[in-house]
């Protein structure tokens, strides 16, 4: 496959590769992993004045407390991406498991679980999250568990729908007629065929969770200071706009770029899957 793609690379193909979002996402992930090594200063280190303009020592200037903006962005990538990845993993672990079982068992169990989840779906996630976090406090595990569980309801609907379309196919009937157990049917017959739509959904869900964390942080319920995250950086520096300073635009741009990047990657993946 890569052999046939090679010629197109030469004819401006690099531009298309860059536009695919993959390099952008890879760059942000690399920065998140190696944050302590690539960041020029410490995460909560005061190094300059309030909202210093960009200069050689501080490429993107400083923030509302005189901390290096680039450093905060790099650590923010680490905190936010890790949190979003864990919450996505939790949402998928729960949503896919319950969704698959409901689809494969069917009957009143499926109906009961599905109606219960629909009740949860009818409440906006932000409202539920605000309620839970204000009662339980917003430590990192509570934050991950809350977001993971709330998003699991969305994953459930997708996973169940995908599994239901596979369950009715005859190779599943063949496995059941053989006497195979439910877990074998789920893992060996259904999961491999559901992987493509679920992977696409995972990447999209990651974007949503990422934006969700940013909104929570913006409201002061996400990651707590002095830890940096992109959402709270927008909030902390929002006042700078009044003085015509670009400080809040850097974290906002970072959020936009990661979201766009992940979505581009998903689009490419889906297009490749759709091809015969």
């Amino acid at each position, binding site marked *: 496959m890569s052999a046939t793609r090679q010629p197109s690379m030469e004819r401006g193909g690099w531009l298309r590769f860059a536009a695919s979002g993959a390099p952008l996402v890879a760059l942000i992930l690399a920065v998140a992993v190696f944050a302590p090594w690539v960041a020029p200063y410490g995460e909560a280190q005061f190094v300059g004045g309030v909202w210093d303009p960009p200069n050689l020592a501080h490429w993107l200037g400083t923030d509302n407390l005189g901390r290096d903006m680039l450093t905060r962005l790099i650590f923010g990538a680490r905190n936010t991406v890790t949190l979003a990845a864990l919450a996505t993993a939790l949402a998928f672990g729960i949503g896919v498991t319950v969704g698959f079982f409901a689809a494969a068992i069917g009957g009143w169990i499926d109906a009961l679980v599905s109606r219960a989840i629909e009740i949860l779906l009818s409440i906006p996630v932000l409202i539920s999250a605000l309620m839970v976090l204000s009662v339980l406090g917003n430590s990192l595990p509570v934050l991950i568990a809350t977001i993971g569980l709330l998003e699991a309801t969305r994953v459930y609907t997708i996973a169940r729908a995908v599994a239901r379309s596979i369950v009715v*196919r*005859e*190779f599943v*009937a*063949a496995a*059941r*007629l*053989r*006497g*195979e157990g439910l877990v074998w049917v789920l893992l*060996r*017959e259904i999961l*491999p*065929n559901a992987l493509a739509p679920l992977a696409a959904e995972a990447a999209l869900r990651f974007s949503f969770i990422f934006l969700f964390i940013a909104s929570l942080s913006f409201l002061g319920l996400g990651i707590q200071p002095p830890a940096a995250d992109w959402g709270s950086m927008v909030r902390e520096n929002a006042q700078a706009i009044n003085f015509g300073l670009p400080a809040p635009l850097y974290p906002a741009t970072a959020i936009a770029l990661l979201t766009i990047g992940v979505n581009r990657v998903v689009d490419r993946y889906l297009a490749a899957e759709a091809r*015969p």
Partner: protein
Amino acid sequence: MTAGPLLRIEGLSVHSGTGVALVDDISLALDRGEVLGLIGESGAGKSTIGLAALGHARGDCRITAGRIMLDGIDLRLQSAEGLRRLRGRRVAYVAQSAAAAFNPALRLIDQICEGPVRHRLMSRREAEARAIENFRVLGLPDPPRFGRRYAHQVSGGQLQRAMAVMAMSCGPDLLVLDEPTTALDVTTQIDVLAHLKTLIAGSGTAALYISHDLAVVAQIADRLLVLRRGRLVETGPTEEILARPQTAYARALVAERTAVALAQPASQAGPASQSGPAAILEVQGLAVRYGRQDALSEASFALVPGETLAVIGESGSGKTSLAYAVCGLVPGHAGRVSLAGTPLAPGYARRSREQLRRLQLVFQLPDVALNPRQRIGSLVGRPAQFYFGMRGEALAQRVAELLGLVGLDPALAARRPGELSGGQKQRVCIARALAARPDVLVCDEVTAALDPLIAEEILQLQRRLQEQLGLAYLFITHDLATVRRIAHRVLVLWRGRVVAQGPTAQVLREREHPYVKQLCASEPEMRRGWLEETLGGRAAATAAEPVQYPHGN
């Protein structure tokens, strides 16, 4: 209008996106009012040529060489807009699946009238009047009001005819019919075929008739073009090819049907004597209901080892319900199913592993019966692993042995189903069923999705396996030819009821129930004039003996 043939294709070649030649250097000419039959198995390039006559190539295929002249217009030189103006108006297309061609959300008449109105050929009122006239020609019920229905409110045979009306709505010079009766039951097919013939003859339209069934094409086509793998095998007048096929391939196609007509029913060789071995599968008073609808009522039969019982009926007759109930896939059924004297639970979930092993099901569509993400080796090996605990080298050997048994190269074990042909996939399904060492094989229309020659190979394979392994077959089919070739005994289902049952030869000879009579008469024969004779005979019979027997359209 110009002189010369209406459609002239010269040196046409079509290549797929990966550079495979789908059609290679084909030339043909079609006069006004003439019907040309394109015949061959799947992959022969029939549909590709049919679409090329509309100046179209499917997906990422490309027309790479040749000229396509429609009434003096070179279609390859036309712009997209030019082609749009020709399509529907000068050349129209009738697809195999009418259900997929109609928008389910719009009334039929709105879709039928769209073409002529959009092409500004006639007003909506004129278009409707014309459509109603054609509904009448095609024998559709209540022509003035038929068009107000939606696609799901009419039967498959009616929808296929509605699609022909849509294709004729602009009065095209050329009609491309792509397997228009293939998806229909034989008894319905004969009606649609007769009506299409009347329609074509009445309008003076030329037609390209595409089919894999020579006996069907023979009823309607003046000339034939036999294709194989994108190349021309033989061409000539229909009578000429039927009487004196020149090439080996055309001879095989002709013989495929002729052999059926001449073959002695297999019943005498069967082991089904009254004093023979005890029944392996016994079914008593089997009935299936879906909601308030009776899908099957009161079916009883017994099957002894080494015997084949065919269950035949049109779609909706309850034959698949019968097979699924026997296998336990329809838990809510009444009646008793016993395997080797032991009654089985109605649902498969309550049957023992040993009971499941002894009764194996082979599905109709191998494409969906095999998990596309697993390799052939694990698909075929899983039952051996599951029931007999085989693993490692022993399992690999068993897989190779099973693949050999069904006539496949053991090297295919490393492939995935998507890399195999339809016939190969059905062999894999049979090998998987055999891996369980079953006593009874329930075969649900196993050859229905295959080309006739491939289907014949599968039937031969199954007969050989029966002799080697002493298997009992419960064989579900809608094809009488299949019954003749494989079944010792036959059970005829009509609207959920058993209307005839007994040794194949006897049932087909006596034809006691009118449905059996009609079924036997609807099987296309490889000669011209059969269609008219049969329809004439049917009309005479109805006139002489007014049986209240509705046609399954």
